[in-house]
């Protein structure tokens, strides 16, 4: 593996700083249509049950509530301090669990559970444990050795003892939101979070035997400076989280209302923003982290890094994962499912989701059935995002196509990227250069059949860096 510092080429990063999808799915969510409804989801579940060896299941649970608004956030969330809303939400969530679990044969093991939000720990540890109990009753869980249970935690609203309760409920991974420890930045984004409480939660995760701790940082936030972010990185790396995500802040106030409360004048210049990324990459390299892909880094012994070395890394809506393909069931408001050759999404507004469940319906808002071409391109993009490389013969064999003929257009689109040194093209495959690895999605975009139409409307995707 190339050293991390070789990832960084400021000139290329500047040139390719264009909006692009993150490819947690292909086709991406803007392609979903309201023509895909409840009956379609039932049919897809039945089809996947009919596979000779049905795939295991992954569950994603969306908890939409947050106590306080972080101004940078682009997630689907509801700000409230009323904990009763959490209990009311769970009542309906359990109904959704009951309706959807009935669609799947009982010999299909759940191998992955992820709680995201919002703030999952808006719920009390007792409530979260109750959700896990309900899930265990309604689905068949894989043995603990094969089961990944992860939860996104806001360290401001959980105590070290409560982390122990979550571990007892079966969670073995946690992802902590940090963003930046600099007090000026924290004030500007309305997220005051002390170093002490954050480190105490990381420590508690270790004490209670969680296998992996991830920390999220963001660069490009208002008031961010090289000195401040550098200090944040030092403090974070001192705690040696197994995984680190360094996200780029995308300021799109017209799309994400909370961002309107950020003063655009406080945002770092493009030069400073690139400097922040370089600082992060340098420090992570010195600390011995390896690059996984997109915004993700891990310690060399972490399961993600090991899976990447084996060429066995996968990517789904929950990000990078070691689990080979599973059918993903999203539960809760706005959650996305990937069942067989289909995507489907629950309503993004709480009212519609509640209404569907109250009327006894699976809350499907929109989705799509994948055609053969979609499946082939999804595989190509997934390999690219996970391996940073494509093996044409392997892909051609898998899909019974002649890769270079099938993708003649895409390969032509890649030529300028080759000239710019992002990618090396060979007769039997391609490989992102070390400079191109931070720009994988630019390479992936060449294989996206929907992009010309998707890009024609206003920016729906965040910037690539």
């Amino acid at each position, binding site marked *: 593996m190339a050293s991390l510092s070789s990832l960084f080429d400021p000139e290329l990063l500047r040139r390719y700083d264009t909006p692009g999808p993150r490819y947690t799915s292909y086709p991406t969510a803007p392609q979903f249509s309201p023509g895909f409804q409840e009956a379609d989801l039932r049919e897809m579940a*039945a*089809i*996947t*049950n*009919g*596979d*000779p*060896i*049905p*795939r295991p299941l992954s569950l994603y649970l969306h908890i939409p509530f947050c106590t306080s608004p972080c101004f940078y956030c682009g997630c689907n969330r509801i700000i409230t301090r009323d904990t009763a809303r959490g209990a009311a939400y769970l009542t309906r969530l359990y109904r959704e669990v009951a309706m959807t679990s009935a669609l799947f*044969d009982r*010999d299909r093991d759940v191998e992955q559970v992820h709680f995201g939000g919002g703030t999952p720990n808006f719920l009390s540890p007792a409530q979260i444990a109750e959700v896990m109990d309900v899930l265990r009753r309604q689905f068949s869980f894989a043995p603990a050795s094969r089961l990944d249970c992860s939860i996104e935690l806001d360290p401001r609203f959980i105590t070290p003892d409560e982390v122990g309760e979550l571990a007892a409920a079966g969670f073995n991974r946690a992802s902590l939101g940090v963003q930046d420890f600099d007090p000026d930045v924290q004030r500007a984004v309305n997220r005051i979070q002390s170093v002490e409480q954050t480190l105490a939660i990381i420590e508690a995760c270790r004490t209670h035997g969680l296998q992996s701790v991830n920390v999220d940082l963001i660069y490009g936030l208002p008031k961010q400076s090289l000195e401040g972010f550098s200090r944040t990185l030092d403090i974070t790396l001192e705690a040696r989280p197994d995984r680190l995500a360094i996200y780029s802040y995308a300021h799109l106030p017209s799309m994400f209302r909370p961002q309107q409360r950020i003063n655009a004048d406080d945002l770092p210049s493009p030069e400073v923003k690139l400097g922040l990324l370089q600082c992060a990459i340098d420090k992570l390299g010195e600390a011995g982290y390896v690059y996984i892909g997109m915004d993700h880094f891990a310690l060399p012994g972490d399961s993600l890094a090991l899976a990447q070395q084996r060429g066995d890394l996968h990517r789904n809506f929950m990000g990078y994962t070691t689990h080979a393909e599973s059918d993903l069931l999203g539960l809760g408001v706005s959650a996305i499912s990937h069942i*067989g050759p289909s995507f489907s999404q629950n309503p993004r507004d709480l009212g519609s989701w509640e209404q569907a469940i109250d009327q006894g319906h699976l809350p499907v808002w929109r989705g799509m059935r994948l055609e053969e071409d979609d499946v082939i391109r999804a595989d190509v993009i997934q390999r690219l995002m996970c391996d940073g490389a494509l093996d044409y013969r392997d892909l*051609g064999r898998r899909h*019974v*196509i*002649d890769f270079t003929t099938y993708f003649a257009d895409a390969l032509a689109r890649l030529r300028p990227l080759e000239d710019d040194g992002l990618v090396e093209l060979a007769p039997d495959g391609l490989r992102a250069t070390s400079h191109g690895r931070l720009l994988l999605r630019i390479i992936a975009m060449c294989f996206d059949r929907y992009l010309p139409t998707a890009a024609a409307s206003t920016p729906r995707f965040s910037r690539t860096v």
Partner: protein
Amino acid sequence: MTSPLVFPRTDASVVADDGDALHFCSTCAFSQACLSEGMDKRALMDLHVLVEHVGPLRAGEHVFREGDPFGAIAAVRAGTVKTYQIDRNGHEQVLGFHLPGEVIGLNAIHGDRYPCNAIALDTVMLCRFSFPKIALLAARLPNLQQHLFRLMSHDIGVASLFARDNTADERMAAFLIGLSRRLAARGFSPRRFQLTMARTDIANYLRQAPETVSRVLRRFEKDGLLHIKQRDVEILDLPRLEALALAVLRD
């Protein structure tokens, strides 16, 4: 690319290949019988006017139902047709899966009603032959008659294949090898094909629980006999799988 077609994926040439008065469809169930013995053009035209192209039928549509009046046999041109009966307790019994080039409705010949149901498992196209007319023609054409008899006796053989006492592994191996040979005979890849039938259908046909189907296939995969991804099967060790199937298949 020179690799053979992976069933049931059909390229444009197969779908467009409707045959005409003097040519057979590429998957025609009768082409071998007629061509090998040199049928003259007149006889060929006589046969072809009997043929009615039916479809496409979508997955879940019935070709015929038990008790429907029998008047025609049909050859599968594309896709898979499942035949089944409903027993006295209301349980489905899968009788067989019919692939391109194979004929359905033969078991109706002795009566005047279809004794089973036939349903499309994916997009299916058929050639339908009026049975009284083809019987009349067969009386004039010994080759055609012989071929009809051969098809009928083969149909009986297939139905009794899994009636005997074999292990779950042997039955699964025989099922896969059977599919592989039948597909190979129609020009499809014998090593790579899609299982167009659901796990419950395979289980029902092999008289196994669905969980057993998956367990046996997982074991086959672990032993390097085959690789499965969703519905796609790739046989990696054909000789070993054939050896395992030998207990069920006699040749």
